[in-house]
C-alpha cells in the first residue's frame, strides 16, 4: 500500500506569531499516522497580495484563511482566487466571532469556519473534512446560520423557497451542530446515516452561499453577535 500524499495546507494570517503557532500545531497533530491523510503546511502568507500569489503558485489543497486582515481580509482573498482555482478549498479561521464577517467569508466561498481557540487535533480533523468536500460548521457558525435563516416578524419575504428556507431536517442538523454534536452523534440522534448528515450540511452551506434572501445581507451588515 502506498502512503497517500499529505494534504497541503496554506496559512493566511497577518500575525506571524499565530501562523507559526498553527504551523507547529498542524505538524504535531497532523503527522500522526493512522487517523487519515497526514497534513503538511506548504506555505504561508501575511497579506492578501501574498496569499493570492502563493495560492496560485503552490496550489494547496486547503487554505486556512484569517477573516480579519488589512486590505479586505479573507473575503478579498477568496474573491481573487476562488474562480481561478476552484479546486482549492478554503476554511476560515478567526478570532473575530462577528457574525457579519464570518457570513461574508462563507458567502465568498469558504467551506467552513472554526474559531482560533480550536485544538490542534480538531483543526487537523476539520482540514481533513473540508478537503474531502464536507463543510465544517463550528457550533458558532451553525448558530450564525440558524440566526440568518430564522423566520421572524419583520423578516423579508422569501424569494426562492428552494434557496431561502431551510428544511426541517436541515434545521435539526444545524441545531445539533450548534449544540456541539459531531456528525456521527447527529446521525445516531436523528436516526440517519453520517452520509445524510453531510448531505444536509452541504445543502445548508450552499443555501448560505447562494441565497439572496434579504435577511441574510441585512442581518450580516447590522448585527454583531459575540
Amino acid at each position, binding site marked *: 500500500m502506498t502512503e497517500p500524499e499529505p494534504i497541503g495546507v496554506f496559512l493566511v494570517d497577518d500575525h506571524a506569531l499565530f501562523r507559526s503557532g498553527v504551523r507547529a500545531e498542524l505538524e504535531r497533530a497532523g503527522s500522526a499516522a493512522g487517523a487519515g491523510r497526514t497534513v503538511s503546511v506548504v506555505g504561508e502568507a501575511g497579506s492578501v497580495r501574498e496569499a493570492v500569489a502563493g495560492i496560485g503558485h503552490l496550489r494547496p489543497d486547503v487554505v486556512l484563511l484569517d477573516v480579519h486582515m488589512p486590505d479586505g481580509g479573507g473575503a478579498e482573498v477568496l474573491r481573487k482566487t476562488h474562480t481561478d482555482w476552484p479546486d482549492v478549498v478554503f476554511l476560515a479561521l478567526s478570532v473575530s466571532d462577528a457574525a457579519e464577517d464570518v457570513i461574508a467569508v462563507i458567502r465568498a466561498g469558504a467551506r467552513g469556519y472554526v474559531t482560533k481557540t480550536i485544538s490542534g487535533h480538531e483543526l487537523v480533523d476539520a482540514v481533513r473534512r473540508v478537503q474531502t468536500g464536507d463543510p465544517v460548521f463550528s457550533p458558532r457558525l451553525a*448558530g450564525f446560520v440558524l440566526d440568518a435563516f430564522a423566520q*421572524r416578524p419583520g423578516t423579508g419575504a422569501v424569494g426562492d423557497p428552494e434557496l431561502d428556507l431551510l428544511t426541517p431536517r436541515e434545521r435539526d442538523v444545524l441545531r445539533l451542530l*450548534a449544540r*456541539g454534536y459531531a456528525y456521527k452523534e447527529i446521525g445516531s440522534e436523528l436516526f440517519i446515516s453520517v452520509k445524510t448528515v453531510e448531505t444536509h450540511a452541504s445543502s445548508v452551506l450552499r443555501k448560505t452561499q447562494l441565497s439572496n434572501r434579504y435577511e441574510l445581507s441585512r442581518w450580516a451588515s447590522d448585527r454583531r453577535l*459575540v
Partner: protein
Amino acid sequence: MQRLQRVRSGRVVAGVAVGVAEHLGVPVLWVRAVFAALAGLGGAGVLAYGLLWAFLPEGPGSGQPPNPKDHQQALGLAALGVGLALASTALGTSWSSWITAPLGVALVGAAVVWREADETQRQRWRSGAGAVVFGGGRIAVLRVLAGAGLVVAGTAIFLLGQINLGQVQFGLLAVLATLVGVAVLTVPWWLRLMRALGEERRARIRTTERAEIAAHLHDSVLQTLALIQQQPDSSREVRRLARGQERQLRSWLYGPQGYGRTGRDAAAPPQLSEALSAAAGEVEDIYAVSVQAVVVGDCPADEAMSPLVQATREAIVNAAKHAGVSEISVYAEVEPAQVTVFVRDRGSGFDPDAVGDDRHGLADSIHGRMERNGGSVRLRTSPGEGTEVQLIMPRPKPGEDEPS
C-alpha cells in the same frame, strides 16, 4: 528650523537681527536693513529692536562667527537706523505716524499668523511666498488688485484728509478702507490658519483616543500578560487568565456598549445572550474551563428569564465540577413561544438514579428553579457518555418577539 531667539555668536548689538534671520531663513543683511528702514518711521525699528531684545530668550545660535565685512555693514546700518530715527523725530511725527501705525498692525498680524502656523506650514509658505499673494489664477489677481486698490485709496483719502485739515470722517473712512484692503489681501492666510487649527484639533482628538486605548490595554492585557509570566508552570491558571482576558477584551471591543460599536444605546436593557455569556464567563473564571456559548435569536433578559439564566449557570457549574472535561458547550435558542438552552459536556456522565439525596445542585438549583417558574428540565446522561441538560422556559407574551 531655528527657534526665534537672540544669538550669542555673530552678533553686533544684541543678536536680535541674526536670530530673526536664522528663524526666517533669510540673509541677516535684509533683516538689518528692514530694522534700519523702520527706524526711519518715527523710530519704530529702534522700538521693535528694543522690544525683541527684551523679550527673546538668549540662545547659542547656529555658531557662525561674524566676519568683519558683515560686522562693518551691521554697524553702518545701525548708525543709519539711529540717524533716520533721529531725523524723523526732528522733522516731526505727523507724516510718518500714518504709515507706521498700519504697517505696525500688519506686521504684528503677520507675526501672529507666523507663530500659529506649524513647521510644515511655514515651510510651504516660505517656498511659495509669492504664490500666497499672487498665485491662484484670475481670482487671486483680482483679489490682490482689489486689496491693493483699497490700501491705496485709503492712503490717498487719508492724505487728502490731512491736507484738508483732517476731518474725522475722512480719517475713519481711510482707516476702514485700509483695513478691508489688508483683510482681502490676507484671506488665504487666514483660511490656512483656520485649516491648520482644525487639523490640530483633530490630531488632539486622535491623541486622546489613542491614549484611551493604550490605557485600557495597559490595565487589562499587559497586566494579564504579566500575571501569566509569573506563573508559567500552572497551565490551568494560565488558561484561566487567558480566557478571562479574551472575554474582557472581546466585550470591550464588540460588546453592546463596546468600543467597536457606534450609535448603540448605552442604556439598552441587557439581552439574554449577554446574560448567558456573563454566566458562562463567571464559570470559566472560577473553574478554569472553556465554555462555548452560542445563542440564536435574542430577547431581553427580564425577570421571567432570570431563573433560566441561573439554572443554566448551575448546569455549567455542574459540568465544570463533575464532568472532568475542559470544554462545555452551551446552546440557547430563542423562539417566539419559548427559550431552550442546552448545556452539554462530553465528560464522564453519571447515572441519575444513583445520585445521593444529599446532592442538591441538580434537584434544587435546576429542577426546582425551573419548575417553580413554569419551565421544564430534561436530562440525558449515562456513565461515560457525557451529559446534556436541556432547559425549556416558556416566554411570557408569545408572539411579541422583537424583530432583530
